[in-house]
């Protein structure tokens, strides 16, 4: 049984009749040009915006669950997050327990370990670099131990070291019997880390399947409007403008 199944999801004209499934231990990459509807799709699955269609997490219809219960199953890390206050890193991670209404130290410490931020848990969030902050935001959402983790462009604006570090955290979380859907612009990293990919364009899902199927030069060139060079045999895989 799929961990999460989305059926015929529609958000006004931004996402049209999207259907997809995600299994445990799987990482699904959401790719497509700017404005394709990736963020909208993630926000709709997380329940942040209204949508039509069906969303099930295993046998639970999440649309009839109360919002706290839904947030325990599905965690969202939005594209851009800023803290309005100069909060301690520890306190930021603890915010991830809000859906549970507790401050379970086990879950918090585990999230800190997964994201490798032990060294600066007592520093303030505004004193950290962009790369460090990206991992703290991830720790926040992981502290809630969601079954399905939705992450919107977590590696935009990060250097290559932190790009790999964040992708490794996501991949490990998926391997821990969870599911991860990540919206990502870097197609090479998408090919390298994701088990399956979902290509969106103008609110529609154009292709979904393993990287070999979706990362097809012809489909990508059509979608992005430029020639795209794909070499999946190379280690690590290469997908760059042609």
């Amino acid at each position, binding site marked *: 049984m799929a961990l999460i199944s989305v059926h015929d999801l529609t958000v006004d004209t931004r996402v049209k009749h999207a259907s997809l499934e995600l299994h445990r231990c799987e990482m699904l990459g959401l790719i497509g040009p700017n404005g394709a509807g990736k963020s909208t799709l993630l*926000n709709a699955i*997380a*329940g*942040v915006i209204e949508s039509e269609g069906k969303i099930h997490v295993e046998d639970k219809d999440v649309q009839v669950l*109360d*919002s*706290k*219960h*839904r*947030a*325990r199953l599905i*965690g*969202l890390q*939005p594209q851009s*997050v*800023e*803290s*309005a*206050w*100069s*909060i*301690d890193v520890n*306190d*930021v991670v603890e*915010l*991830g327990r*809000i*859906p549970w*209404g507790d401050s379970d130290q086990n879950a918090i410490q585990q999230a800190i370990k997964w994201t490798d931020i032990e060294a600066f848990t007592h520093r*303030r969030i505004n004193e950290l670099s962009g790369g460090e902050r990206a991992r703290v935001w991830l720790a*926040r959402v992981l502290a*809630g131990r969601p079954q399905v983790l939705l992450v919107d462009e977590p590696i935009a604006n990060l250097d290559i070291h932190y790009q790999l570090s964040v992708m490794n955290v996501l991949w490990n979380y998926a391997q821990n019997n969870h599911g991860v859907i990540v919206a990502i612009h870097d197609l090479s990293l998408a090919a390298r880390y994701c088990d399956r990919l979902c290509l969106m364009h103008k609110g529609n899902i154009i292709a979904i399947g393993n990287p070999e199927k979706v990362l097809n030069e012809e489909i990508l060139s059509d979608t992005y409007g430029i020639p795209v060079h794909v070499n999946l045999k190379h280690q690590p895989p290469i997908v760059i403008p042609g």
Partner: protein
Amino acid sequence: MKRAFLPSLLILLIIVTWVSLSFGSVAVSVVTGISDWLRHISSREALIIGEIRLPRTLLALCVGAALGLSGAALQGLLRNPLADPSLVGASQGASLGAATVFYFGLLTGMGALATAIAGLIGAMLALLFMLGLAGSGRPSLVILAGLAVSTIAGAALAVVLNFAPNPYAMQELVFWLLGAVSNRGMDSLYILLPALIIGSALIWDQRHLLAGLSLGDQVAESMGLSVARGSRLIVLGTAFLVGSSVSVAGNIGFVGLLVPHIVRPWVGHRPDKVLLPSLLVGAILVCLADIIVRALPAGQELKLGVVTSIIGAPFFLWLVWKERKQWL
């Protein structure tokens, strides 16, 4: 340090309350006074402590607690360290309500409670108008609508003062607006205390929302929090706190703005962790300010609201300076 802060505040609160009860032109035993007053023995101690100092002290504590908590809640909700209860229009609405009662001689059957009730109604109406105008809990809209409502209420208040029926009414009105907790009696507490409990409960219930909002509306919503509904409840809670304290004690400025800033270095910046300490520090601060008022030489009494403003104004300038340094 964080753990010891709350117990230290409680101890400080007890000390300040004790000092406030013992302090006055006549030296009396606080213990004798309270026990006589509780047992309805009509001694000199019972009269001074039970009828004069106890209501005054309790009122100062409750008004301070209400203002401190509402400041912390509003700054958290609006994610703005310069937010203040007068920002949402509640203070001005309460002033207008009470002034109108003076002017038209309404609610005369209610005696001393008339201004308090009118102030509370004024604050609620101002807040309802503000919420209607803002249409949502979005910070920028709340600030804009609050500014509009306070400007309108301020203009209406100026009209009432301008046409005051006689100089005495005007003087009484101006003195009340300056803010004080003296000569209020236990009756005022019967209004303030329920409002303090209801307002605090509404805000405390939404503490997770205040915490979640630090990372933005989207993160808060994704954690299962209802931003629109919760924001309205916080504003309503603030209305209870500010409306009742202004109606009972007039305008006591800067407490709501200042208190959360005193608290943050001790408990951190997370808005939910600032709430309870702000309530306690607010109570301590206003009670201390009232002791200062009483300690000044007799004669022309300096009003409590004037004292808090004199303490608060330089602090406000410092805040602006600190903020400015970040941008220039």
